[in-house]
């Protein structure tokens, strides 16, 4: 609708342009959106609804003949000391594991990117190896390392330290698994950081060198700001991954000894196994909220104003 106001043509043009831009942008998003709505949004809504009912295995054939129970599942979760324990374990795991993995992966990526000139491919492939190694093989080898008479205690023995049975100890089992998870995840982040480092303009570094900035100053003032989006991405996905910490306790300890390594994801998995689908969904959404909270913190710390 063209009006006769003086500034109208300009505004109309602007809004036409913005409408056009919006159309183009949604054009870019369309294929994603269609698949997203069918295969992601649908099941997510359904499972969210499920968490407010009392659906268990017996209702699998008749999912609509269930009772609506409101927040009962959620209340029950927090009344279960094992679930609370699993949340605490997961929190410890995330708070220690995420920064550690990121720091080590960044150090490795920097070293491989600028620090050395030879054998880079060998190192890159080598550091990525744990990511592709089968969890079964990893579990066997790590058990061999962590056994009371295993490699680690043999090594400590040289220094006259009598190491514990790492996985049998309620104190040491979780730190052992954290170490294992950090080790397994360095490779993925290294790859992401190596890609991100390509986005750091080399001239900036060269200009700063001419200005006499040392390596640490250059790292703080040039590399980190340019890497911000990549760091944020890495922090968020590592946070999500670590909050869903599952494989290591599953193959190493089954959550034991005495729930010392029971993670929230493992608790959820067990509930699914028992056929308590609603209750397990509720546990998943509690975990979901924890992930959202963690990601918000990470966006606040690492993101620019988006």
């Amino acid at each position, binding site marked *: 609708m063209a009006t006769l106001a003086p500034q109208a043509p300009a505004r109309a043009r602007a809004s036409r342009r913005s409408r056009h831009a919006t159309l183009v*942008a949604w054009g*870019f998003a369309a294929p994603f959106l269609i*698949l997203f709505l069918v295969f992601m949004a649908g099941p997510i809504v*359904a499972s969210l609804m499920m968490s407010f009912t009392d659906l268990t295995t017996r209702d699998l054939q008749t999912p609509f003949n269930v009772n609506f129970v409101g927040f009962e599942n959620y209340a029950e979760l927090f009344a279960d000391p094992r679930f609370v324990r699993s949340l605490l374990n997961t929190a410890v795991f995330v708070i220690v594991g995420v920064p550690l993995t990121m720091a080590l992966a960044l150090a490795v990526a920097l070293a491989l990117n600028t620090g050395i000139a030879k054998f880079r491919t060998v190192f890159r492939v080598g550091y990525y190896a744990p990511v592709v*190694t089968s969890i079964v093989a990893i579990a066997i080898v790590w058990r061999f390392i962590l056994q009371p008479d295993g490699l680690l205690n043999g090594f400590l023995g040289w220094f006259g330290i009598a190491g514990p049975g790492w996985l049998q100890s309620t104190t040491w089992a979780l730190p052992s698994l954290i170490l294992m998870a950090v080790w397994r995840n360095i490779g993925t982040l290294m790859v992401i950081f190596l890609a991100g480092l390509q*986005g750091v303009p080399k001239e900036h570094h060269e200009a700063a060198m001419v200005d006499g900035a040392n390596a640490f100053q250059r790292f703080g003032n040039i590399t980190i700001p340019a*890497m911000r*989006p990549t760091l944020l*991405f890495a922090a968020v996905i590592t946070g999500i991954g670590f909050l869903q910490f599952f494989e290591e306790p599953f193959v190493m300890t089954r959550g034991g000894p005495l729930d010392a390594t029971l993670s929230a994801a493992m608790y959820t*998995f067990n509930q699914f196994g028992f056929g308590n689908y609603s209750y397990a969904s509720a546990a998943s959404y509690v975990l979901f909220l924890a992930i959202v909270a963690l990601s918000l913190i990470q966006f606040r710390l690492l993101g620019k104003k988006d």
Partner: protein
Amino acid sequence: MSATTKDTAVSDAARDAASARSTSTGSPSRRRRRPRPRWWLYVVLTLGLVAMVMPFVWMLLGSFKTTAEIRQYPTNFWPIEPTIDNYTQLFGRLDFATFFTNSIIVAVFVTLGNIVFSSMVGYALAKLEFRGKKVLFVLVLGTLMVPGVVTFVPLFVLTANLGLVNSYPGMILPFLITPLGVFLMRQFMLSLPDDIIEAARIDGAGEWRTFLSVIMPLCGPAVATLTILTFLGSWNNFLWPLVVATSEDKYTLPVALALYSVGQNAAQYGLMMAGAVVVVVPVLLIFVVLQRYFVQGIALTGIK
């Protein structure tokens, strides 16, 4: 929004690059002053390397041992009587070609879909201004954060109702897009300077052309990363193919190999190690092929 500091040198170079539509992949300039190699760095990295590859090597060696030898405690590092029995058994007992083909079909389609769709949405989210952008991004992030296992049963019911059980589309479609891929592409594109897009617009290129001939050529490292991540994810995906593929001719490698983990006690470790090695090889190959993208200085700097 762009996280790159505006710098005239960069933008000029970028403009040159953009107007030249240079998509050539010359080797990165080797004339840059490299810092002198620090021997201590090599020592530290090598120690780390040993710690990283040990289980992998152990898996490889284990695939040449008899099951009895692997299960021995304490076990030997080197096989005492190396044997290729595990491999002959594996290829003999499994209809290997079928499972391998299935895995490849699923992984290739999933990876391609992810690259195409994630790049498109990522571009819109990183570089275009439009209504509903925030909502779209929050949706993407939100789905990324929902633990996968929770949607499992509804997703299967949906797949069954669409008549896709025991079909390739049923195995591929739900994974054709991943929020992770979108997020990755968006973050990477955020760090590309806006000027190159402006330059392309000034040259009269439309959105699609800008995207295809200016943006995508700069995304080599990100696409390589995405390829590795999604291929690996699809290749190792176990639970979904297991429930969707209801007959053995649709099984993927991990599902077929899991047939050998017979309970906790009677696992044939040697076979499992051989199977694991076979599963890992394609992924490692892809990694080795693509990892050179992580060292290619990209056209951002104009020095190509």
